[in-house]
């Protein structure tokens, strides 16, 4: 139960801010990061009811620019970047030649450039892949001096509006530039919890002051990585390195919304042959949710068995849902067993658990879609 901290770990811009607020720091993605402050359960429920502030500065913020950058990005990813509207973040996937997922990311056209946010543990590999595969006229800048905060929850807009007036005008998956205390901010209405909320790119030197300003509001509290994981699991959102990796394709992972009609018709992205075939004929396995009987969490690595005890899949994320007060999980199963309600058995450390394929999200999304009030 001891948490080892290695000297080689990097520190985030908000490192001392977290420690000052009582965070327990753990190694994650090469950094020391806050896993919790007052406790995962309380932080999780706070975010579902109020507003939680997450430091996600470990994530890679990139600026990709140069001649015909949109067409160039389409050679690496299946997104429709040529038709991408300005200031609208798009979810996409960096793919290898077999259609396996190198990373999942958000890419936003900002004028002539694309602002891309990738996962922390994969960012250096992503940059290398982009630099080696993009034409020489396209440049990838790693925005090392930027911190990234996320404010998530049903009261997030109310809180942030008091600090950055105008953010409430943004619709879900829309971004804009703002200024705060003379510092430039890039804010998008997006996140990883299933709740309404914002992601805020801020110069690292101003990050602690902004975090202080947000947490001075009585409805906002700092939230650690532990609750970030349980929130995204309830929201049915996959986590790279667990639910997505080089062995999973976008079709297996149920992320086909990220491949639009034109790209399906034209192909031209890595692994297109396999991915288009899977779109046509169905993938061998599918990512699904599981309701698990009893109270004991079934976690990543557990096996999925059919009625005869054959291994038919694997759990890739699982835990106890603080909102539902019962265990939930996500994983992959053979496609013929992926139908909702299919009874399956999970095996963890020699113990068997009854489970059923369940719809995701487990907890409904509450995004701020304009016109939906």
């Amino acid at each position, binding site marked *: *139960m*001891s948490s080892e901290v290695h000297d080689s770990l990097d520190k985030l811009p908000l490192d001392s801010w977290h420690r000052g607020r009582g965070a327990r720091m753990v190694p994650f993605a090469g950094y020391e990061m806050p*896993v*919790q402050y007052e*406790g*995962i*359960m*309380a932080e*999780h429920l706070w975010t579902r009811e109020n507003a939680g502030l997450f430091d996600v500065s470990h994530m890679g913020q990139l600026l990709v620019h140069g001649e015909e950058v949109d067409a160039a990005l389409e050679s690496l990813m299946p997104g429709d970047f040529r038709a991408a509207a300005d200031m609208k973040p798009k979810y996409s996937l960096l793919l290898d030649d077999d259609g396996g997922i190198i990373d999942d990311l958000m890419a936003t056209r900002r004028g002539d450039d694309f602002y891309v946010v990738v996962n922390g543990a994969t960012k250096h590999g992503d940059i290398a892949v982009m630099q080696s595969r993009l034409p020489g006229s396209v440049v990838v800048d790693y925005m090392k001096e930027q911190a990234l905060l996320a404010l998530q929850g049903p009261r997030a807009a109310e809180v942030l509006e008091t600090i950055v007036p105008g953010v409430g005008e943004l619709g879900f998956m829309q971004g804009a530039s703002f200024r705060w205390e003379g510092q430039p901010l890039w804010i998008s209405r997006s996140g990883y919890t299933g709740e309404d909320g914002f992601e805020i790119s801020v110069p690292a030197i101003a990050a602690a002051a902004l975090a202080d300003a947000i947490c001075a509001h009585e409805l906002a509290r700092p939230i650690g990585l*532990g609750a970030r994981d*349980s929130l995204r699991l309830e929201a049915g959102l996959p986590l790279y390195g667990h639910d997505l990796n080089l062995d999973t394709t976008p079709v297996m992972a149920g992320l086909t919304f990220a491949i639009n009609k034109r790209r399906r018709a034209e192909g031209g992205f890595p692994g297109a042959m396999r991915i288009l075939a899977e779109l046509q004929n169905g993938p061998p396995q599918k990512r699904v949710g599981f309701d698990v009987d009893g*109270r*004991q*969490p079934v*976690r990543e690595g557990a096996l999925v068995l059919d009625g005869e005890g054959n291994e038919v899949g694997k759990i890739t994320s699982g*835990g*106890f849902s*603080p909102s539902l007060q019962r265990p939930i999980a996500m994983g992959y199963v053979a496609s013929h067993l992926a139908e909702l309600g299919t009874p399956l058995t999970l095996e963890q450390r020699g113990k068997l658990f009854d489970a059923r394929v369940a719809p995701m999200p487990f907890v409904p999304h509450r995004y701020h879609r304009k016109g939906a009030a």
Partner: protein
Amino acid sequence: MPVYFTREHEWIRVDGETATVGISDHAQEQLGDIVFAEVPEAGRRVAKGQEAAVVESVKAASDVYAPVSGEVIEGNNALGDDPSLINSDPEGQGWFFKLKLDNPGELDGLMDEAAYRDWVKTL
């Protein structure tokens, strides 16, 4: 009644030939919100240093080891309905199981309460 502690953060409170076992306040704090506990049933034999129970927090699963060998005489069934007792009262109502000691001599290698509390401060 004397209470002893292990380096794996179990406590054992001895009353003659029987003893009650649980995890320390430090252990529950490290684990965080506990959502599940599985305790051994009466009649099961446990060996010193071997897994005797399971405790799971939101974040992770951990084994609870038997501080000494013996036969379980009672598991704390209250933990099945309310595992958060381990967080709220780890060294009281959040006990895991009671056992009959095979060999009280096995207690000799354990820390007494003062030694344990001092040691925990150094972690």
